[in-house]
């Protein structure tokens, strides 16, 4: 026993001696090692020390413009070719019907689609497009972070000729192309060359719980003012008026947008979102809309704890019957039972436009096939398929809803587009706008900051984004 203890103590001593030796003699050596590693790292990375990205020259290539729709012969002339695509996961149901038909029509083309979640897609697609073998056809996202970067780096092919040839510039979907138009420097959008196309539209509206409204003797709301009248009634009946899940910080900005557009001309908001010089967010209308949001929040119209609830969870709860209204985009409709819920229009406008636009890589070697694929997405047949799979098509002629909720939503879309009041989304205006605006609006709704401070902060961020270009 004693010897064991001595052994243990000896070992402790030894270990301590070792630790000390390491601490004293080892420290400078380790420091040298670290310094060497850092130096090595710098040398490895900074070969020649030129500016990053200097070697990458934009391969605009010689663009062959089209004046006639692409023929099967033209596509066949490509030989056996693979059309490589990157798409949002949400496109899967649509692609399942479009791709087989396309491959049948163009037998020499194999379509190979890489699906990504939306967050993943927008985080990686720009890098993929700038790689050595970019996908031929891919979805970007409206705004500076993705589409702006793609245009600026000349990675995507202008589509003006395609749009003119296939007649996209006329008809119901024409106005939805605006957010994919850019100036050549990639610094402002809404006007200029067309760089993308989306076959899918989005519209804001008021989803309502039919049974709950009936039990309270309320008519389905047809406008925001209708909604405003209904809110206190629902609240007085002890129910939650509006279901809101704002932990992702965007849901409340959409409602804000719907309110803001009633206070000023929609065009002035679109201009601001598109980055038009001299426009400002610090308007009376925006302050008033922010005040209304704060007021509704204070009166409990959004319930409590909405900042801790995700939009996904909120729509799930609404679908199960809590909340009389859900103010939001048409993409939420797919989660709702069409028998139990209705959709009211905001013809006064608000947030909304199109889903992520498709782009053709500037360096694509299969451009005719890519053009043919885009054309296949922009047809009434594809439009019907889009509606059937729970979303809204840009091409609405001859498209019919399968149930009352779909028909209502389609009707709302047509009326809102006809009114020309869709302003796009605020977070397109600057890459960090979603977090700036979303975060500040949370503070306004919690009564922690004034609506004036909110509009100022948003405008400052907008200004900063303009300056950095």
């Amino acid at each position, binding site marked *: 026993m004693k010897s064991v203890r001595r052994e243990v103590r000896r070992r402790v001593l030894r270990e301590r001696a070792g630790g000390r*030796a390491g601490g004293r003699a080892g420290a400078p050596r380790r420091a040298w090692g670290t310094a060497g590693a850092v130096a090595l790292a710098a040398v490895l990375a900074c070969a020649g020390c030129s500016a990053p990205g200097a070697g990458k020259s934009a391969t605009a290539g010689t663009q062959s413009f089209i004046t006639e729709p692409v023929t099967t012969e033209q596509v066949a002339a490509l030989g056996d070719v693979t059309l490589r695509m990157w798409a949002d996961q949400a496109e899967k149901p649509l692609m399942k019907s479009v791709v087989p038909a396309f491959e049948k029509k163009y037998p020499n083309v194999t379509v190979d689609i890489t699906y990504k979640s939306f967050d993943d897609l927008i985080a990686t697609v720009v890098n993929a497009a700038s790689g050595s073998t970019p996908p031929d056809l891919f979805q970007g996202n409206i705004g500076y972070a993705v589409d702006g970067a793609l245009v600026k780096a000349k990675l995507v092919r202008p589509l003006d000729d395609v749009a003119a040839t296939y007649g996209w510039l006329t008809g119901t979907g024409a106005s939805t192309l605006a957010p994919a138009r850019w100036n050549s420097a990639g610094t402002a959008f809404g006007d200029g060359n067309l760089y993308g196309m989306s076959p899918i539209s989005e519209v804001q509206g008021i989803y309502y719980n039919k049974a709950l409204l009936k039990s309270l003797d309320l008519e389905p709301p047809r406008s925001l003012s209708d909604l405003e009248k209904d809110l206190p009634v629902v609240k007085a009946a002890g129910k939650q008026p509006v279901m809101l899940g704002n*932990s992702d910080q965007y849901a409340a900005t959409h409602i804000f947008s719907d309110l803001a557009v009633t206070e000023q001309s929609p065009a002035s908001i679109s201009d601001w979102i598109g980055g038009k010089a001299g426009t400002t967010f610090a308007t009376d209308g925006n302050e008033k809309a922010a005040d209304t949001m704060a007021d509704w929040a204070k009166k409990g119209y959004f319930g409590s704890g909405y900042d*801790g609830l995700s939009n996904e969870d909120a729509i799930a709860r609404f679908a199960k019957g809590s909340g009389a209204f859900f103010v939001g985009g048409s993409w939420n409709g797919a989660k709702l039972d069409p028998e139990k819920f209705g959709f009211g229009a905001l013809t006064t406008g608000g947030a909304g436009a199109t889903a992520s636009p498709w782009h053709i890589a500037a360096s694509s070697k299969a451009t005719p096939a890519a053009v043919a694929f885009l054309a296949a997405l922009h047809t009434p047949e594809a439009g019907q398929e889009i509606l059937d799979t729970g979303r809204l098509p840009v091409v609405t002629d001859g498209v019919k809803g399968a149930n009352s909720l779909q028909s209502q939503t389609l009707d709302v879309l047509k009326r809102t587009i006809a009114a020309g009041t869709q302003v796009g989304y605020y977070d397109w205006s600057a890459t960090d706008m979603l*977090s700036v605006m979303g975060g500040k609006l949370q503070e306004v709704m919690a009564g922690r900051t004034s609506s004036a401070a909110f509009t100022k902060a948003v405008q400052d961020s907008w200004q900063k984004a303009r300056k950095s270009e």
Partner: protein
Amino acid sequence: MSTVAPARERDTAPTPAGIRRFSRPRRHLTSLSWSSLLYVAPALAFFAVFVLYPIGISVWYSFYAYDGLTEGTPVGLDNYTAVFTDPDLRAALLHSLVLLFFYAALPVAVGLLLAGAMSRIRVYGLTLFRAVLFVPQILSSVVVAVAWRNLLAEDGPVNAVLRAVGLGRFTTSWLGNFDTALPSIGVVGTWVEYGLCMVLFLSGIVAIDRSTYEAARLDGAGAVREFFSITLPALRPQISIALILTVTFALRNFDLIWNTTRGGPGTSTTVPSLYVYQDAFQNRMLGRASALAIVLTVVILAVVVAVQLLLRERDGTGRGPLRRATARPARKVQP
């Protein structure tokens, strides 16, 4: 002792510490041969390509305004000045300091408490407990985030328990409330980290000579005294490791926050790494993101070095508490 490998025997031969201290560096210099370098070459190559090279790239980018696509423009130290002058980032750093308490201090304290208790009280199914308490550490952080989002929701189990015991007025949407969001995320971090600390400390306690406890008990030391005089000092290396791991986790924490609050509500839970992600992948400002990442790395290194220095074993002359604790009872017991 004869089972110890010869090489190790020579390396740690029980010679006085002084000789060893001088002889070791010399031997190191002479024995550095190319053949030995060959053995580490694969690992070194891997390390260079996947660690050193990216670090170098980050340093390089940090001096440019670069969007990852078009040619960058050199901006000197602008990115670094931006890091130090941005009020949002300062707020984020402050949040990190709060999280340090929850992610590092608290888990170590809880881990010590649990390990101390487990080592003293005979627990049936100890292995099982140990494994269960370690589970949070091996769960994917996204899973942890989603689970806690539901636990802490307005109508989640946490509030249900509060209501059940008559504390209904304290219920809130924990992650959606400006005042509770940061501490709530902190608690999640504590839950994730304490298992690791506990397992580390348990392994350290096993290595402590049981006879020192016996001796202490003969001297009339109680559980608390035993803990502070023997267990705690002997666990110094484990505490040091635990702190290094948890402090690093706290300062570079991103996934938990991204998957629970995204920095909200408002900016009440922002942390520096959140801005690194946003600048790099959303704002395409790779230069600023790199500068921030490098500053963050330096801060983490500094804190780790500080922890190591603070918890370093004292010199023989310094007579740390461990030495006193082990030496005194030993002397008494000896006839």
